[in-house]
């Protein structure tokens, strides 16, 4: 049988040869930053997307009229040099920087700005069909956009809307090239043209998006020659790529890996608290949670420190109310998180007469801002068991989960996990705590919380243009909501990123957006 053995040897040596030639040292090219993303971008049209993952690319390719000041959530000039708000809060007039051009050479002027908003908001606009534009409702208050002169554009609102400027700084407010939209139509999302520090170079599906330095950038050309965004959906693989040097930067590092990388000198760990809240929606319409005492009891019963310190490995802090501390000016610093006190919880439950109640708990497998939802849910389940609440978990994949939670929990569940990342202190409470935001009225108040006082405070805060006044209103709202406990407040996430030690001048922003203009390598 010698010949057979010979065949085997030749096959084995052939495989060996392939392996030998295969030995490689993963290294990223100099002056090019490779970023490990969590998913393939859906589109590079800023008006068509909703995911933070896509925003990370877009913020480097496009500019908005305004932008968040580095390290804060305050707006500052960007494409607009200055702006004026009328006293009634209904007209915003922006003065544009002169001489700015899109990457395709066309002018970024008032007409272009008008084109952008009309495309999103006006159903009769010839390019409205290049949508859909899911987040257009951010600007639903805009009644019309007028070109005053080539450098001046004016927005007229139908009602005062305090978060307007903040929304303009959000990626949905980024300005795209009208010429490119006209040229590519529905395919604009694959051929993006903006005015930002990097210009789009290449998008190979499921492999990478490359953006290159814009030497003509009005704010000065970036240091990096190019940035490569690589989608790596599997967290382990992303970490493995980072460890093997296949990428220079990764975001959303699993907490346990983050701890390990922090101890490794070849990596730099970045953390930044942001406007994020992880909470449990409690069904206040029926069952045990109709009783405020039981809702409070849940807040006492959950060991939030343990979740934050152990499961999340310190990548989050314990939440103290509905408004994340990242909104520094609007956050009520007098509030302290509900302490962990099973005894108090037991007493409250006993008082309310809901000992050994059976509860259904919707848990998701993962989703935007959901951190480690299954582990957190399981831990919460165990905590509630200790105070005599029997919780049954049902897990759903993210889209199914949203399909179940957003229409309201009535008749289905008693509690559900949820997380929000917002750009303005108004957004979350306005969309999810008002009586007028119950699911049947088109809002996200899936737990049917209702307090006329809170409704009132939120309405007022929204229409006020005075930030101090707004701050007072929000703080009052927080105190009431804290006590009413429509949610169990669990955690505020500190977003994180790891870069290889060669990456310089990188900083995370509270807005969760990734700005790479100043970064060098």
């Amino acid at each position, binding site marked *: *049988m010698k010949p*057979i053995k010979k065949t*085997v040897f030749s*096959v084995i040596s052939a495989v060996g040869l*392939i*392996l030998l*030639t*295969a*030995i*490689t*040292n*993963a290294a*990223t*090219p100099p002056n*090019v930053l*490779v970023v490990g993303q969590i998913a*393939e971008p*859906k*589109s590079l*049209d800023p008006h*068509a997307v*909703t*995911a933070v993952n896509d925003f990370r690319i877009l913020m480097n390719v496009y500019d908005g009229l305004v932008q968040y000041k580095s390290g804060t959530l305050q707006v500052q000039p960007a494409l607009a040099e200055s702006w004026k708000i009328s006293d009634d809060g209904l007209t915003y007039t922006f003065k544009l920087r002169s001489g700015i051009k899109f990457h395709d050479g066309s002018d970024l002027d008032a007409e272009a700005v008008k084109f952008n908003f009309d495309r999103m908001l006006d159903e009769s606009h010839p390019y409205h069909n290049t949508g*859909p534009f*899911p987040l257009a409702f951010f600007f639903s208050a805009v009644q019309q956009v007028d070109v005053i002169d080539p450098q001046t554009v004016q927005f007229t609102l139908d009602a005062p809307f305090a978060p307007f400027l903040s929304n303009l700084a959000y990626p949905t407010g980024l300005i795209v090239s009208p010429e490119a939209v006209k040229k590519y139509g*529905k*395919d604009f*999302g*694959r051929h993006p043209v903006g005015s930002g520090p990097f210009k789009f170079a290449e998008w190979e*599906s*499921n*492999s*990478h998006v*490359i953006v290159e330095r814009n030497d003509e950038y009005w704010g000065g050309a970036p240091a990096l020659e190019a940035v*490569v965004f*690589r989608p*790596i*959906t*599997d967290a*382990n*693989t992303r970490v*493995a790529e980072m460890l*093997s*040097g*296949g990428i220079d930067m990764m975001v959303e590092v699993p907490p346990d890996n983050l701890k390990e990388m922090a101890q490794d000198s070849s990596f730099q760990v970045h953390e930044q608290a942001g406007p994020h809240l992880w909470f449990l929606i409690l069904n206040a319409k029926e069952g045990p949670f109709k009783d405020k005492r039981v809702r409070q009891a849940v807040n006492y019963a959950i060991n939030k420190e343990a979740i934050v310190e152990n499961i999340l490995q310190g990548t989050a802090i314990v939440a103290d109310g509905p408004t994340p501390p990242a909104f520094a000016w609007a956050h009520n610093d007098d509030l302290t998180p509900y302490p962990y006190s099973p005894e108090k919880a037991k007493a409250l439950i006993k008082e309310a007469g809901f000992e050994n109640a059976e509860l259904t708990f919707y848990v998701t497998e993962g989703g*935007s*801002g959901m951190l480690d939802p299954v582990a957190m849910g399981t831990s919460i389940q165990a905590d509630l068991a200790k105070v005599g609440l029997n919780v049954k978990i049902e897990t759903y*994949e*993210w*889209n*199914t989960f*949203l*399909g*179940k939670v*957003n*229409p309201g929990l009535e008749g289905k569940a008693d509690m559900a996990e949820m997380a929000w990342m917002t750009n303005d202190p108004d957004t979350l409470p306005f*969309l999810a705590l008002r009586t007028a935001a119950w*699911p049947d009225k*088109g809002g*996200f108040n899936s737990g049917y919380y209702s307090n006329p006082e809170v409704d009132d405070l939120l309405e007022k805060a929204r229409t006020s243009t005075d930030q101090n006044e707004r701050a007072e209103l929000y703080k009052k709202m927080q105190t009431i909501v804290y006590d009413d406990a429509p949610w169990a407040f669990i955690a505020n996430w500190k977003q994180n990123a790891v870069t290889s030690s060669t990456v310089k001048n990188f900083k995370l922003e509270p807005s969760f957006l990734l700005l790479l203009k100043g970064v060098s390598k």
Partner: protein
Amino acid sequence: MPGASRVIHMSQRSHSIWRYTGERLIAAVPVIFGLTVIVFFIMALIPGDPATAILGSYATPDNVASLNAQLGLDKPLWQQYLTWLTNLMQGDFGRSYSLNRPVIDEVLERFSATLVLAGTALIICAIMGLLAGILSAVYQYGVTDKGLTLMVLIGISTPAFWLGLLLILFFGVELRWLPVSGMYEIYGGGDLPDLLRHLVLPAATLALVATGVIARLTRGSMLEVLRQDYIRTARAKGVPERNVVLKHAFKAALVSVIPVIGIQAGFVIGGAVYVETVFQWPGIGRMLVTAIATRDILLVQGGVLVVAASYVLFNLLADVLQNLIDPRISS
């Protein structure tokens, strides 16, 4: 029986293979279309809809309804299916909601990636499986047989998704011999050696189970064939033992192994989902999983259509091969 009437000439034989192939292809059409109907309605039964998936956290009932209307998803289901089918007849697979690009582009791109991966895995598992099976049979109960049997057993008993991660950690992170994920380097890659480097780990992981199945079957089939009288005849003729095994026995054993390789092809393509996820291979399995999660019906339809067609083709290929080897079947 008079011999003359049973003469079948070569030309007739190959003719009958073509006819057989044609018949099989025609028979596959209703199967594939039935499948698309089922898939379409299953997708409709899954809670959640594309609008929810697109809107994410902003999916209020209002927003969802208006977006669904924009996407044409507010029409009755059968109407949506008919629209899809009519467009398909004109070669239009529709446009993916979640990817903002034509379904056909995405599907073909993804499918070719899977084909590269699954094809390599299939070649590996066919060669290794057949080789291991032959060696096992020839050295039955010897050290070689025992060693191979053990390896085969490990192969078919190990969860592939788990093994893939271990391989990444060892060869990618620890030794840094092979790239961790993806299909090509972004810079300086794109050539064949680059592709091969990226292929080694995922293809090996994917091939493992199928190799085990084929090896076992080949071993059994070889042993059965080696018992046959015509093998004794070959030996009585003085045929060298190597030819007895590699020519006489192997050809006969192949007849029963080939259809299994065809079925394994389906499994390898199906099983690629785990491997594609772990190794970030931009294949169609992962695309389908994402498409199901984002309720991207048209993308799912396009993907299923291509995968099902490839399954049918692989099996047909196996059948034709089997026919070519064994002239008794087609007559």
